[in-house]
């Protein structure tokens, strides 16, 4: 005890931070290759490793109505075989080089990615170009991937987080918006996808002239340009037409949507509405506002729900950035008997940030966090390549990284209030809850958001909210 007391007496005062050392996002250079493909190279020589990312304008927004999931399947099919070799051989050859490879689609684009050691870059790049430029789309593998997606959808019925995310989008967007339907498709739409759909999407949208290739890591710009020109020499095609995205909100009257999961020990809550597109004059203000509201661990919503009320292990809010207006969503999982209380606290926090100026302390917490964490985000070649790909995808401009921190730091408390008033709208918020319907229904009715509608885990309306329990 005396040793502790002595130590207490001598513990030095909290040190002040030193002077920050300068940081610059890795420099990059842009080239247009003979095929029309845009190449951006960011040399970074810390370790003998290189990441390559190819993006094409073929995300889920290019799915035809009734064939949602096509874009995701088409991207995944890149790994399933080329004119020269089947998918298993392709995987084995990549892996023999220690390469890590991916191919998938998000809402906006399809992305193929490669990370490999410098010594194996040349052969890995040849395989990568073959995969992106000459896929063979074997019918057997398409059927397998479709079956795997069906199984995933079946699993989602018992997975409250994924289920809550999926259904929240459905209740937020107008039915004609692609965003209202699952990114990788639903059972009916996936079943409808045929081999020729995959071939058509590929030939119409996977084109060199519309593609961007980013190389980051242990290479020089000239070496990378030569390697890419050689590897992708035969890939051609003119840039595809841009997709018009419908991001309209639902016109349905406000209600509370309960997805009944019998005896669930927790309720998964999603409260949100349509947000704003990635390219928007208020982007930086909204980012800072959201950090204060629910983006950080030390944000209002998390401190309220977790550290003050212990309703949850965690709560956060997020604007999902897309070319169109992605959703703004507050997400949390709370003990079932705290469901309505938690929703009430979230609504209160949204009202509060729209009513009062935030404190200086809150503002500087958000702005110094966002600008300080900036270099920590770009430690890996894959993260650098992804950031540059996003810069191109959203047309952020080559000075984006250089001005990011000053853009964040220039946001004021008045900007945050204005952004909250303009881009958070309590009257439009939709509440989705996956939980034990019989025990939470009454208290959710008392929230006065609107009438409660109960669904089963397939998203079908249940008459009295008890079917799931009896089944």
């Amino acid at each position, binding site marked *: 005890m005396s040793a*502790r007391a*002595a*130590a*207490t007496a001598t*513990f030095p005062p*909290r*040190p*002040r*931070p*030193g*002077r920050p*050392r*300068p940081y610059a996002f890795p420099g990059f250079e842009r080239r247009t290759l003979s095929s029309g493909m845009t190449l951006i190279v960011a040399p970074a020589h*810390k*370790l003998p*490793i290189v990441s390559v990312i190819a993006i094409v304008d073929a995300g889920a927004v290019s799915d035809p109505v009734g064939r949602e999931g096509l874009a995701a399947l088409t991207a995944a099919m890149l*790994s399933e075989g080329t004119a020269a070799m089947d*998918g*298993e051989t392709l995987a*084995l050859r990549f*892996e*023999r*080089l*220690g390469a*890590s490879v991916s191919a998938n689609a998000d809402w906006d684009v399809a992305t193929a990615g490669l*990370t490999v*050691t410098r010594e194996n870059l040349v052969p890995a790049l040849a395989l990568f170009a073959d995969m992106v430029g000459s896929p063979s789309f074997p019918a057997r593998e398409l059927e*397998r991937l479709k079956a*795997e997606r*069906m*199984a995933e959808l*079946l*699993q989602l019925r*018992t*997975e409250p*987080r994924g289920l809550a995310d999926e259904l929240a989008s459905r209740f937020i967007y107008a039915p004609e918006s692609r965003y209202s339907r699952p990114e990788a498709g639903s059972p009916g739409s996936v079943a409808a996808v045929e081999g020729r759909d995959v071939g058509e999407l590929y030939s119409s949208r996977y084109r060199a002239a519309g593609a961007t290739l980013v190389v980051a890591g242990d290479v020089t710009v000239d070496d990378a340009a030569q390697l890419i020109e050689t590897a992708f020499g035969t890939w051609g095609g003119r840039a595809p037409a841009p997709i018009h995205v419908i991001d309209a909100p639902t016109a349905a009257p406000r209600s509370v949507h309960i997805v009944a*999961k019998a005896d669930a*020990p*927790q309720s*998964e809550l999603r409260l949100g509405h349509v947000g704003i597109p990635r390219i928007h004059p208020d982007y930086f203000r909204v980012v800072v506002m959201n950090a204060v509201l629910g983006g950080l*661990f*030390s944000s209002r919503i998390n401190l309220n729900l977790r550290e003050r009320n*212990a309703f*949850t*292990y*965690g709560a956060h809010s997020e604007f999902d950035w897309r070319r169109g207006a992605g959703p703004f969503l507050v997400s949390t*999982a*709370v*003990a079932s008997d705290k469901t309505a209380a938690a929703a009430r606290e979230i609504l209160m926090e949204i009202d509060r940030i729209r009513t009062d100026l935030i404190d200086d302390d809150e503002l*500087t*917490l958000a702005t*110094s*966090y966002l600008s*300080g*964490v900036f*270099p*920590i985000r*770009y*430690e*890996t070649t894959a993260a650098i390549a992804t950031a540059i790909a996003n810069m191109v995808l959203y047309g952020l401009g080559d000075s984006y990284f250089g001005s990011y921190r000053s853009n964040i730091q220039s946001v004021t408390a008045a900007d945050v209030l204005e952004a909250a008033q303009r881009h958070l709208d309590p009257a439009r918020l939709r509440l989705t809850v996956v939980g034990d319907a019989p025990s939470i229904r009454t208290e959710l009715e008392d929230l006065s958001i609107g009438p409660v509608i109960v669904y089963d885990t397939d998203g079908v309306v249940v008459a009295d909210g008890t079917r799931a329990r009896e089944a």
Partner: protein
Amino acid sequence: MQIPIETFRLTNGLHVTLSEDHTAPIVAVNLWYHVGSANERDGLTGFAHLFEHMLFQGSEHVGTNEHFETIQRAGGTLNGSTWLERTNYFETVPSNHLESILWLEADRMGFLLPGMTQQKLDLQRDVVKNERRWSMDNQPYGTWWEKLPALCYPPTHPFHHSLIGSMEDLSAASLEDVASFFRTYYTPDNAVLSIAGDFDPAQARAAIERYFGPIPRGPGKPPLRDMSLPPVLGKRLRETVHDDVALSRVFLAFRSPVFGSDEYYAASICAAILGMRRGCRLYRSLVREQQLAQDTSAFTYDLAKGADLFVIDATARPGVSSETLEGAIEAEVDRLRADGVTDEEVARAQALLESDFIRSMQSAGERADQLSRFATFFDEPRLVNEQLSRYRAINSADVDAFARARLGQDNRASLVYIPRVAADVEEPVTAGAEA
């Protein structure tokens, strides 16, 4: 690939490792305390993890929630995690904030208890109960990582009981239990402090001496119960769980050599041959060829004491029974045991493990964590730089020897999840008859 490593000890026993890299103005700080759920006493399960939460609740010099806020305000990321053998706390921050982080970590190592209150304990207990509901009880297959060690380690073994613990034990924990746990385990001589990234070693060393130096040694911790186990389970173990899942999932576990042993590296290569990425045997056979499984993988728990676990998992396609899936997994294991692996397969596994290792070493936080790991378990952080050569030293004969010794019928434990709806249809009568 080698990273620079400097290592020393303070007189109070704190083991320090430093690794400079000035690529970006960021620095990672990582503290491993050599205490995990294995150190818990009966009736106090879940305590190591609950304690991890308490370390973010303030101390003599830091207010409630101020730890998180200070680091986020600095522009840093942070967290902590609890495992069977250790608890770690880590931050990555802009490098000019290194001293503040060292001060924060020293403060909560030396002066936690004056800031501890019953109210904070009660609150975090409820947060942890929600963490359990979120990560296990309301998540398909979420209980597997509690059930598998319980199945594979004998009831008296320190790895047997649940890491997140029983809710009853958590409810019974008192403030005095918290204080006693802290005094026993959160001491400089039971910790490793690692720093990786952009810092000046002389300045860092001076700051470490200044903030951690005055913290007294601990009283010594009680020895762990005997961790040693025979090399194999000795009989077939099995647990079937009827759960709210849509598809059956099989976990097939084997008792396996401890992390860091020569045989461990052979086990890792074997796991990569069986269950890493799409060129592995299980994916090619179960997912691609036979289409019995939705996904599959093989991995080790990486436990350094007594005995590790080697685990294969696979999720059934709809309409495929767990028996069929389990049979298909075992057929691949038996084939590997009977016919051995090829040099080509070993080379593939080595290439994947090597490039994954280099990839992970890009991150300052990962470097610091690995330094702490090897310093904690083997008293030698420089082992980080030997990992690639240890994987490269393995040949097909080593993998075959591992498979013969450890993947046999006498060393298998199955944890099988079956959709509850299907189970209800299959066995409505037997349940009643047995009751």
